[in-house]
């Protein structure tokens, strides 16, 4: 069985993650519950003829994927696999609103075409003239973990050399307002921007596009090795310990072998209790890292967690801003486990190690 390495990454997020050093100057968002991605210079990456139809999520994804491919120095991909929770929701909104507000008259195709869930994977294929395998997963919090698992299987079991995977979600105004209405996102005037101390329901909503090149060959710039990934739709809190133990055991490890665990706390009192349970399991042995206080929550946020874990493994340590209360931790982190769930569902584990 082959090994699976992360040889290139590109991340567009609410932090400046596409240039500079790893989280050197984090932006602290302290007065809003919906946070938008920091925009790169799109025109440097996308020709004007193509850019005119693209929503921000598609543009971010084209840039992030180009960065990942450039870093990995690959000429040919054996697959393009994306995950997206809400898909191209800006164009869905656009088409829907025109259709409803103008009673189905004078509708044009562009936003309908762009609203398709596999727009990004298709666009990347088109741009690269890549005829290879092309998949898009749309399973809420399990969207990116599914893409990762697929990519991992292709490298490990199917003899593929290079697979591009990515997690994509974008903010759309009306839809996010609806999510605020039902308490999935904290209300505008609700002060709980510091999610690790949150006492309210809902999360701080964010967005991002994060891409990785998975490869079967280790190179100089390799960030980390992906050992395994797993997801299940439903889990009771009491089952979390068994879920994690089984997963580690099948990789010949146990809890004490994990140097750092990346947790998905998002400030939603209804569901952060899962992470409390994970914290209880790991706190005596492992460093506990968080990231959604910097990145916000969205369905494909686990892609950010992989980006963080990869950086941490490359550097051997994590910046203090990822620790609760800015504590300090180990400076020889060699194994990282990521645990994420979305509103109590789609529990996923990803295990990575240094190279």
């Amino acid at each position, binding site marked *: 069985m082959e090994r699976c390495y992360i040889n290139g990454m590109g991340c567009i997020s609410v932090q400046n993650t596409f240039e500079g050093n790893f989280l050197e100057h984090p932006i602290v968002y302290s007065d809003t519950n919906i946070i938008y991605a920091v925009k790169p210079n799109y025109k440097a990456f996308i020709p004007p003829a193509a850019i005119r139809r693209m929503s921000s999520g598609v543009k971010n994804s084209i840039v992030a994927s180009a960065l990942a491919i450039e870093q990995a120095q690959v000429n040919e991909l054996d697959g*393009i696999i994306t995950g997206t*929770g*809400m*898909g191209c929701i800006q164009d*869905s909104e656009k*088409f*829907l*609103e025109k*259709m*409803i507000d103008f*009673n*189905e*008259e004078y*509708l044009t*195709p562009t936003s*309908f*075409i762009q*609203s*398709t*869930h*596999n*727009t990004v*994977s*298709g*666009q990347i*294929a*088109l741009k*690269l*003239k*890549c*005829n*290879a*395998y*092309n*998949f*898009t*997963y*749309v*399973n*809420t919090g*399990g*969207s990116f973990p*599914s893409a990762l698992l*697929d990519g991992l*299987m292709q490298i490990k*079991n*199917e003899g593929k050399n290079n697979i591009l995977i990515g997690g994509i979600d974008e903010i759309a105004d009306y839809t996010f*307002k*609806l*999510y605020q*209405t*039902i308490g*999935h996102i904290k209300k505008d005037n609700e002060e709980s921007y510091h999610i690790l101390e949150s006492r309210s329901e809902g999360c701080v909503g964010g967005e991002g596009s994060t891409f990785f090149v998975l490869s079967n060959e280790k190179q100089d710039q390799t960030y980390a090795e992906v050992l395994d990934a797993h*997801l*299940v*739709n*439903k889990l009771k809190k009491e089952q979390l310990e068994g879920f994690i133990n089984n997963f580690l055991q099948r990789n010949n490890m146990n809890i004490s072998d994990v140097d750092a665990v990346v947790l998905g706390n998002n400030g939603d009192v209804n569901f952060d209790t899962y992470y409390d349970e994970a914290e209880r399991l790991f706190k005596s042995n492992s460093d506990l890292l968080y990231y959604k206080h910097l990145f916000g929550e969205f*369905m494909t946020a686990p892609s950010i967690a992989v980006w963080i874990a990869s950086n941490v493994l490359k550097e051997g340590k994590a910046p203090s801003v990822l620790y609760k209360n800015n504590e300090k931790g180990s400076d020889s982190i060699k194994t990282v486990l990521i645990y994420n769930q979305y509103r109590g*569902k*789609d529990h996923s584990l990803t295990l990575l190690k240094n190279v």
Partner: protein
Amino acid sequence: MKEKVAITGMGIVSAIGMNAEENFLSLKDNKHGISKIAHIETTLKDKILVGEIKKSNQELESLLNLPSKNNFSRSSMLGAIAAKEAVQSAGISTDGNTSIGFINSTTVGGMDMIEKYYRDFLDQEELQHYIEVHDAGSNTDLIAEHLGIQGFVTTISTACSSAANAIMLGAKMIQSGRLDQVIVGGMDGLCKFTINGFNTLMILSDTYNQPFDDQRKGLNLGEGAAYLVLESEASYQKRNKKPLAYLKGYANANDAFHQTASSEQGDGAYLAMKSAFEVAGMKPEAIDYVNVHGTATPNNDLSEGRAMIKLFDQKVPDFSSTKPFTGHTLAAAASVEAVYSIFALRENLIFPSLNFQNKMEEFDLTPQQELKEKEISAVLSNSFGFGGNCSSLIFVK
């Protein structure tokens, strides 16, 4: 060549039947399900024909015994009905089952409810439970919950090839030893969003769709859901279950030509078919019947036809499109047609391509026009979608 994957159960709802048996009888008796729209309020009502399931949402709710306050979309109700039948026909229990997987696919997700209540959500609290099923995955989750599945669950959305890709992933999960049993397929209910979207592309026919006909005017949208239960050899042997058929080959390739249109020569289609044969370790001449994608759009049929001519080196086997029966059921199309492919293997029958009159001027291809009896041991099924997404599956006895 990989270990073949067994199919031990199947379930389907479409415009020609609410279960597998009804679908089979309609196919055999030339009974199509294309009609005017009855259950959706749209200004296009009198302009297009669709393959609609002749049941209202209320009727579907009662078929599933759903509580009066539920947030099932039309797609997820169709999905739940078909998935239940698949599970029953496989003879397995899903309630509380943590080892069975569920790989669903959809393009519509909860859009039908979102479009219905979009402007009312903010001030009508009693509608707000539908907001959380907007995204595709939440609809899969409703079905998983309905069936009691607690395990590996995911959803794929690659436009009109979605269900083929769900079937493909299921096979890989079994071949890699990650799962022993998995329910795979797709669902899509009709909704205004899709109807209007396809209408803006000017590829909807105002009459009955005519795949591979020179005068074809476009597609009829349809709705439906279909699922297969895939199983490893060890698993079905242990419980003495006789498989219905096997999935032997599969592949996905990208046309990388245009966002919605297929390339003139069908490069992606050709690649998908060719790779599926490689996975199966079979030669094209082993195929007895091709269930083509055959949407009856000018573009699809031309590029699919050319790809087949190239792949089969001019000797294209018997082929038909079953979309004149069901309409194009989008994400569900490949699983609907997988079920029909299994019927073909089981009954040694080729179902006709309805509405065909004249050969296309570009090539010499005539689809099978009447029900034909012949020994069938291998079927190729194609599904192609937006974003250049092309998938092919090979089923054998």
